[in-house]
């Protein structure tokens, strides 16, 4: 069985690009990845894309649009949607194709443009008898931040997390993002700045929530044989895992209307499950991880997901945060890219943007935000209805 090598990565800057199409962004990211890999488009044997659900059928069939734009070579493609973990599905498929010998050079790509403001319900043509993603808007007015705020407040009650802690998360991550040339937000904020920003859903402030962005990212994966003959980045995907939520999970999961607070399973079970699978495949554990790209949709996420990934014991994230140990050069650097906090969320591209950062870091090419001596990095994204994907990359 071959290892799965990262042959090249590419991404666009992230921001709002009203004059560009998602295909255009995808072609830019893919061209950069092919250039990084030192290969031509015609050498790519398969391509898997995350669906751009805001773009109708052309968006849902993103892979077909991108392949057509690059030159319709007849290669196998797939289009996948797993909410904010969609790119994990594309990555999973490409990983499986390489590791199984089905493809020697496989691309995984995500290209997305986001609606303004809160991510709304995805339009539907056929009515569903009980659609909680409709009911959360029509019966409760529960935006994404409402769910995060409700869980955040429970954490504050249980563990003594403070408003200053939440602000300090943004301070820490924004320092990293300030040095990332592809980040949308490149200002390093102070605790005072964060707490002075408007409250969106108590206790979460605007600067403690990720924006919604446009952007694209692509990765070229290859087999041992191609890596030997053609060269690679020296980075391997050691494990890719996908997980779904369990019924015994006490979390209030988007977009459901109810939870079971006394349930005895682990919170954020989809993330626990996807990371356990990625760790298992990689033959590594949380202690081997040198840095982590988290699904930092809000400041609360950073604290909660460090626990879901078994990188911290319950309550430990706040201690590490206050001691500065989550910053670059310290014990466990979080989101050296600046995370979703600095890039903004582009649902169908963000997981591969994490792979871009993991690769640059593990190549020692991350410039002023380099995690010194990094050998293993982890990236995770998760989406509503309880789905998560995790990737562990090593050099």
């Amino acid at each position, binding site marked *: 069985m071959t290892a799965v090598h990262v042959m090249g990565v590419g991404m666009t800057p992230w921001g709002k690009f009203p004059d560009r199409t998602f295909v255009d962004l995808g072609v830019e990211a893919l061209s950069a990845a092919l250039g990084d890999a030192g290969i031509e488009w015609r050498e790519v044997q398969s391509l898997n894309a995350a669906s751009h659900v805001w773009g109708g059928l052309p968006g849902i069939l993103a892979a077909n649009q991108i392949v057509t734009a690059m030159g319709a070579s007849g290669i196998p493609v797939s289009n996948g949607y797993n909410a904010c973990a969609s790119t994990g599905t594309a990555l999973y498929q490409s990983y499986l194709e390489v590791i199984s010998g089905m493809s020697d050079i496989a691309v995984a790509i995500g290209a997305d443009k986001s609606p303004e403001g809160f991510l*709304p319900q995805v339009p539907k043509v056929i009515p569903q008898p009980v659609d909680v993603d409709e009911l959360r808007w029509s019966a409760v*007015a529960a935006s994404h931040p409402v769910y995060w705020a409700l869980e955040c407040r429970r954490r504050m009650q249980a563990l003594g997390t403070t408003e200053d802690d939440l602000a300090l998360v943004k301070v820490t991550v924004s320092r990293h993002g300030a040095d990332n040339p592809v980040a949308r937000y490149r200002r390093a904020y102070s605790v005072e700045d964060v707490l002075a920003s408007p409250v969106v859903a108590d206790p979460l402030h605007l600067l403690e929530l990720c924006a919604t962005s446009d952007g694209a990212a692509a990765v070229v994966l290859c087999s041992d044989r191609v890596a030997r003959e053609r060269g690679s980045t020296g980075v391997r995907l050691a494990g890719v895992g996908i997980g779904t939520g369990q019924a015994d999970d006490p979390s209030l999961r988007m977009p459901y209307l109810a939870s079971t607070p006394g349930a005895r399973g682990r919170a954020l079970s989809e993330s626990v499950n996807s990371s356990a699978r990625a760790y298992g495949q990689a033959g590594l554990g949380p202690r081997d991880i040198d840095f982590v790209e988290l699904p930092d949709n809000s400041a609360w996420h950073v604290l909660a997901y460090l626990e879901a990934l078994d990188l911290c014991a319950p309550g430990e994230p706040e201690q590490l945060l206050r001691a500065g140990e989550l910053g670059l050069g310290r014990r466990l650097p979080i989101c050296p890219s600046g995370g979703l906090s600095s890039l903004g969320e582009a649902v169908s591209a963000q997981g591969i943007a994490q792979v871009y950062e993991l690769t640059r870091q593990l190549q020692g090419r991350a410039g002023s935000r380099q995690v010194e001596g990094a050998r293993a990095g982890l990236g995770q994204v998760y989406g509503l209805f309880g789905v998560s994907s995790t990737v562990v990359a090593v050099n």
Partner: protein
Amino acid sequence: MTAGAATAAARPVAEGLFVWPSPPGEARLIASRCPECQDVAFPAVAHCRMPACSLVETQRTEISGSGTVISYTVQRYQPPGPFGRQVPYRPIPIALVEFRAGIAVLGVVQGWDGQPVAAGRRARLVLAPLYPDADGTQVVGWGYELQ
């Protein structure tokens, strides 16, 4: 503020979520319970969610009365959807209230005084007008009155 009685000018936000029409002052959510593991789900599901009870048919149960606030927040910005179309927009307080059956349900707090809602506070399930439809019909849902 309750809106239990059916009138020509009111409709439930969706069918099958709560008993409608209901006598004034009465609110009963329609949930399901697994006869084997007792797991309660809202909205009701046909089959139990627990893998150990795969495809076990659930029974109808109802959620009513008072529960305990375990978390709350306020949607301060206009959300997409019908709540956001109200002019002027007023922040919407949302509570997560746990009932004796072990299930916690999201709902809009009625008659909110603008003050933080402490965890542990009791809240009573009510039916309440949410917003008017495009044709002026009052859309009714469930919510909470703080006690």
